[in-house]
């Protein structure tokens, strides 16, 4: 009863999104929808070549098709390739964040829960992996495994899990000794129940913030790896690979590199802004 009357007492205090975040949420939603419905939205097949329409400027039209953002060196529609490229970017980022997030959070929670040698080994490993620039680890792993979409996800997951492990570890340490956790343990709850029912819900906020900021980074990493030729292989369109091709045509066809870059920039900017906003809201220290 008390809670309901309190809720009625301050209806105006519902948390409103600041005006700076709303447009970026819209951009993110737009890009996600674009990726999901790519076959419906894209004007033409992203891999359809039209050798008569190579390197044509934005707005060029041929055989009744308008190339709004121009064509690339094989006469493929840049707009359609950007739309399909969003699928790769978002899929890789989502999969690698999910994998490394689950893996890292579990290890971090286990390290903080069991302490002892488990803690020492796991957290030392976290220190080691974190002290090496992730892009270097990624480069050598892809060089060994060979470039492909799956390998990029594996590589990113393998190099990024310590970020989650460290946050999960720190937060679990502070939660594990709370009375409710001790009580639940005392009443016979097993480790799995303790971690999943009592600890995880209380540390999820911090982990979600890390995951959001990591998502933006993963988009950049995938593009970077594809740019270096270590990511998604042709003819699948990826923004990084498009930029790499565009780099060879900066003198003659500026649009090939410019527009995928705009898409990449907008996506990462939107995610970073939303992540920043979430951190400000969920992290009491920064308030």
């Amino acid at each position, binding site marked *: 009863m008390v809670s309901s009357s309190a809720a009625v007492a301050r209806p105006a205090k519902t948390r409103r999104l600041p005006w700076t975040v709303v447009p970026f949420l819209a951009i993110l939603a737009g890009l996600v929808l674009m990726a999901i419905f790519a076959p419906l939205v894209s004007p033409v097949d992203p891999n359809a070549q039209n050798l008569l329409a190579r390197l044509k400027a934005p707005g060029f039209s041929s055989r009744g098709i308008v190339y709004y953002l121009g064509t690339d060196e094989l006469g493929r529609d840049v707009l359609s390739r950007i739309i399909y490229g969003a699928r790769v970017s978002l899929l890789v980022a989502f999969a690698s964040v999910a994998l490394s997030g689950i893996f890292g959070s579990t290890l971090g929670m286990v390290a903080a829960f069991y302490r002892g040698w488990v803690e020492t080994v796991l957290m*030392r*490993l976290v*220190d*080691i992996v974190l*002290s*090496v*620039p*992730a*892009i*270097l*680890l990624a*480069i*050598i*792993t892809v*060089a*060994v*495994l060979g470039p492909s979409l799956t390998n990029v996800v594996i590589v990113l997951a393998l190099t990024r899990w310590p970020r989650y492990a460290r946050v999960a570890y720190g937060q679990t340490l502070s939660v594990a000794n709370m009375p409710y956790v001790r009580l639940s343990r005392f009443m016979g709850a097993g480790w799995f129940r303790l971690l999943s029912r009592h600890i995880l819900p209380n540390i999820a906020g911090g982990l979600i913030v890390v995951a959001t900021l990591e998502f*933006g980074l993963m988009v*950049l990493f995938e*593009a*970077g790896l594809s*740019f*270096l*030729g*270590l990511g998604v292989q042709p003819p699948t369109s990826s923004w*990084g690979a498009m*930029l*790499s091709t*565009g*780099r060879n045509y*900066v*003198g003659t066809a*500026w649009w090939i*590199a*410019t527009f995928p*870059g705009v898409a*990449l*920039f907008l996506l*990462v*900017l939107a995610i*970073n*802004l939303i992540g*920043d906003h979430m951190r400000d809201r969920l992290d009491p220290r920064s308030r």
Partner: protein
Amino acid sequence: MSAFFLKRALQAFVAVLGVITLIFFLQRLAGDPVLLLVPQNATQADIEAMRTSLGFDRPLAVQYFDYLSGLIMFDFGRSYVQNVPVWTLILSRLPYTLMLAGGALLVAFGIGIPLGVAMAVRRGKPEAKAMMGFVLAGQSMPTFWSAILMIIVFAVWLGWLPPSGARSWSSLIMPSIALGLLSMATFARVARTAVLDELEKDYVRTGHAKGLPMHRIVARHLLRNAAIPVVTVAALEIANLLAGAVIVETVFAWPGLGQLTVQAINARDFMLVQGVVLLGAVTAIVLNLVADLLYSIIDPRIRLEGNA
């Protein structure tokens, strides 16, 4: 105090050993390491000959310790594509990467610190919000895209700067900016937080009370105290700059270590890739250590807590 240094140095040593082990076994995990080293058109006999000559037919433990003892003597192995010791190749490219990292650090520091200080001092004002927007944009800008945009505008359209290569000092300008922008965002954020923390301190209020103008409080008193986190981040950022150089050097055809790595990957020159990655990883670990030690020298509270 020395116990803290020793403990941290030991940790760094373990990390270096860990990375070496990781790279060593990564190469073996993926399958036959000889296949990574031989040219694509090698015959079965070539592969077997290579296996014996490289010692890959020996027990794994022997290979591992052999590899370790070689590394101690700066023996990173031989590039089988160019038939030159890896270390020689690295040394020939290192000066260019250091030059680029230096230029980028200059850009990052020169723009990031004043920006961060200004954002903190003018907190809540519209100009501070605009600056924050600029920082966020810099942070979200993929280096390879800002690099290409600069080439299009300043090299192709305006013709002010050379698009690539390393023929003159002007070739260094665009790569430095492209690489420095990302670190600029980091420096601006750290400087902003550090200055904001300091602004709440008593000595700032004292300064106000005795009628000092704001710029004088900031320049004479506050910056010195706010420098601690900035110095630490600087050491860590250098490691990131070296890693970021891989992409920037590729875009600008800058003949440094990054370009060498990408060429090595494309030529399947695995020994060379391994050497550069190892060097980068060890540099990063050492810089991490330096950052920690610097921090504890500037702020004695850290090492006291570490000892407790």
